[in-house]
């Protein structure tokens, strides 16, 4: 009897392709992808821990009453914290998400194991180089490393390796999409989770190309081979890397919202065309807003600033507002179809708040939307930026977007990735249920502390405010809030890391049996899935919440214009 030839097809249905069938969902898992999801997710969580330890020390230093670190180490760990959180934790975890999104939902095999190894090897090597050189005191330049500040060449080379490695992983993603379609691994349109991941990958290409364009001449300058690039040019191109990497995060986070609301509640996009168009608006326009880092810069003019910071007339902001409606709307429809129809908000009360993946998603949505989005658009207004640039309001904004938003969503995802991909049930499930709340509350406090201190003029990236003699007790109070929030957020982060690591070593092995459910509201008697598919007015709760959001937005936005009008005329 001859064995069937191993097919060269990239469909998971083809014979001989290494795969397994998930014991919980029945979906096929590509074993190559699974291996690299594991490597990248674990690496991400390690860098999250390192960045988190730095965060605690920094928060306890900006809290003036504690003022833990000396100046040199404050600036050093601030550089370390930025790189480990905004680049390493996020990019490694996102590559893991990309490998999932192009395989299981499409029933496809990862394009190439070798390419995945090269990607992972480069990313990890670069990460270790950058972390080493920072801790060795040779790169006290902040994550942004603005010229003429100069770091050791290994700093730039390490970042180049991380960027190129990530780009290779992104190539593996696109190649998988291509061969999946070519080999007929699936028919029809890709699912929304894969579509969102594609948007993230496209933006990642733009990001990483900017990274190469800025870092290569800076590296050659640091080696003494070429002249110094112009500082204003450096800022323009660097933010093409720096902000656009955060837009990758936005896409990935929104994709995770769709994924988790689907896994936990069976939610589906209420209108696929609308949701996908929103992702396309991200693809086309969200990267323009890197300009909001240059709003009070010399050299670039008002027209360039206004057009680009507006995300092309706020079309990419519209996209966020669309997702801000469609994600909760999908949840509301799913709950109402299960029979939770009491009043406008009965479904909210019945949601699985004890399911840590769900609570992380909900917290991520609310924090990102109400706090992150509103402050971001406002601070990124050309003229309002005058009263915000380089103050602590800026970190106050991005700690609720990339931390309270993206990172919290990724933590929620881990509560399913570890059982489904690593095939281990979580230990200490009570602690897991509390963790998203602890982290979410902590980071919200950090953001409030930063934002209020910043609106009183306290600078970001500054070791000591007392040296100037111009900040009063209120500013000190808010820095204290920052400090306490930082401790809580660190505890939330540490809990998450210990839960993950502990589970990987001690969690009950699942071996293709179903994971222990975190909790889903049961379908009530007489309910029917899909019953509201044609009812376009069923989302009463969501429309009320989004209108409340819009009202908050308008109030905050115009309050800031008023605050701007109170300062000296300037042009």
């Amino acid at each position, binding site marked *: 009897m001859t064995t069937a030839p191993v097919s060269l097809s990239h469909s998971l249905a083809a014979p001989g392709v290494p795969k397994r069938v998930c014991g919980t969902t029945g*979906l096929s898992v590509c074993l190559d992808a699974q291996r690299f999801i594991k490597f990248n997710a674990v690496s991400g969580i390690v860098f999250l821990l390192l960045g988190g330890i730095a965060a605690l020390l920094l928060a306890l230093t900006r809290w003036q009453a504690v003022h833990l670190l000396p100046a040199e180490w404050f600036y050093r760990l601030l550089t370390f914290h930025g790189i480990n959180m905004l680049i390493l934790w996020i990019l490694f975890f996102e590559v893991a998400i990309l490998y999932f999104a192009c395989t299981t939902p499409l029933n496809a095999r990862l394009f190439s194991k070798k390419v995945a190894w090269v990607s992972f090897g480069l990313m990890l090597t670069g990460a270790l180089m950058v972390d080493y050189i920072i801790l060795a005191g040779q790169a006290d330049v902040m994550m942004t490393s603005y010229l003429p500040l100069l770091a050791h060449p290994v700093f730039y080379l390490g970042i180049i390796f991380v960027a190129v490695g990530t780009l290779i992983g992104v190539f593996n993603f696109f190649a998988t999409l291509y061969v999946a379609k070519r080999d007929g691994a699936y028919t029809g349109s890709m699912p929304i989770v894969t579509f969102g991941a594609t948007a993230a990958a496209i933006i990642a290409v733009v990001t990483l190309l900017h990274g190469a364009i800025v870092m290569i001449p800076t590296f050659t300058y640091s080696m003494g081979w070429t002249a110094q690039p112009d500082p204003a040019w450096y800022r323009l191109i660097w933010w093409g890397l720096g902000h656009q990497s955060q837009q990758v995060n936005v896409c990935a986070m929104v994709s995770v919202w769709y994924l988790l609301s689907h896994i936990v509640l069976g939610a589906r996009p209420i209108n696929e065309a609308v949701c996908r168009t929103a992702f396309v608006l991200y693809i086309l326009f969200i990267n323009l807003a890197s300009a909001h880092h240059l709003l009070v810069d010399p050299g670039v003019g008002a027209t360039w600033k206004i057009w680009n910071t507006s995300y092309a007339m706020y*079309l990419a902001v519209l996209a966020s*507002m669309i997702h801000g409606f469609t994600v909760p709307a999908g949840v509301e429809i799913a709950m109402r179809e299960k029979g939770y129809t009491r009043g406008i908000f009965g479904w909210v009360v019945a949601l699985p708040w004890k399911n840590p993946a769900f609570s992380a998603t909900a917290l991520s949505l609310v924090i990102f939307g109400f706090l992150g989005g509103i402050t971001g658009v406002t601070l990124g*207004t*050309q003229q309002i930026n005058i009263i915000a640039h380089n103050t602590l309001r800026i970190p106050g904004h991005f700690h609720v977007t990339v931390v309270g938003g993206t990172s919290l969503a990724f933590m929620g995802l881990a509560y399913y990735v570890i059982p489904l991909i690593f095939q281990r049930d979580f230990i200490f499930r009570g602690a897991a249920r509390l963790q998203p709340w602890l982290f979410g509350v902590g980071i919200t406090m950090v953001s409030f502390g930063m934002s209020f201190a910043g609106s009183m003029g306290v600078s970001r990236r500054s070791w000591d405010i007392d040296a100037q003699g111009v900040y009063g007790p209120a500013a000190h109070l808010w820095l204290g809030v920052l400090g306490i929030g930082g401790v809580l957020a660190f505890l939330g982060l540490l809990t998450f890391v210990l839960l993950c690591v502990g589970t990987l070593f001690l969690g009950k092995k699942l071996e293709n049996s179903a994971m222990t459910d975190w909790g889903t509201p049961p379908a009530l008697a007489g309910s029917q899935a899909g019953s509201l598919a044609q009812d*376009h007015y069923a989302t009463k709760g969501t429309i009320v919440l989004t209108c409340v959001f819009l009202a908050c937005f308008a109030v905050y936005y115009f309050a800031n214009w008023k605050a701007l009008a109170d300062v000296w005329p300037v042009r």
Partner: protein
Amino acid sequence: MSLRPLTSPWFHAPAGHEKLWLGLALLWCFVMSLMMPYWHFRGKQNSTGEAYRVQPADFLARTEKFVAANRVGTYKNPLANNPLLQELPIVEPPAGGDAYLTGRMWQWYPALRLRLGETYRLHLSALDLQHGFSLQPLNMNFQVLPGYDHILTITPTSKGEFTIVCNEFCGIGHSNMSGKIFVE
């Protein structure tokens, strides 16, 4: 469905609540899109980025010339934290004229005395690294780059002693970097 390919037709126009929300959100985006151009023409606070290329040494020389021609006094720093900022010359530009401010590790040089209601062209540049011009307690913030003469056409509309903090990381003395503007 969110995790499986879509094999049946899925493309249809928005309807109901989602259409309502799209309309509201689009309207809000339109309002926001108008605000910046409106303020550019009718508002008093803008950042147009007016700038010229300059060699740091030339800018410093021009600043020294400005100090020599318009010096009116000396500011002595009561806070003993910054050896580079024990004292600064106080310089008053002519009404409606040009003032020059050099940012360098770790001071804003010189201190300025301005008159209420007069409009000045304030030239900002850096000698060594990037610095952040952050005027407190007004909380007005602008980026200052070596090689660029960043001009702010500015009108003080309040009196008093104002401190220029630096809010762009510029080395170990960064949090001590300070300057002064007195408005009378």
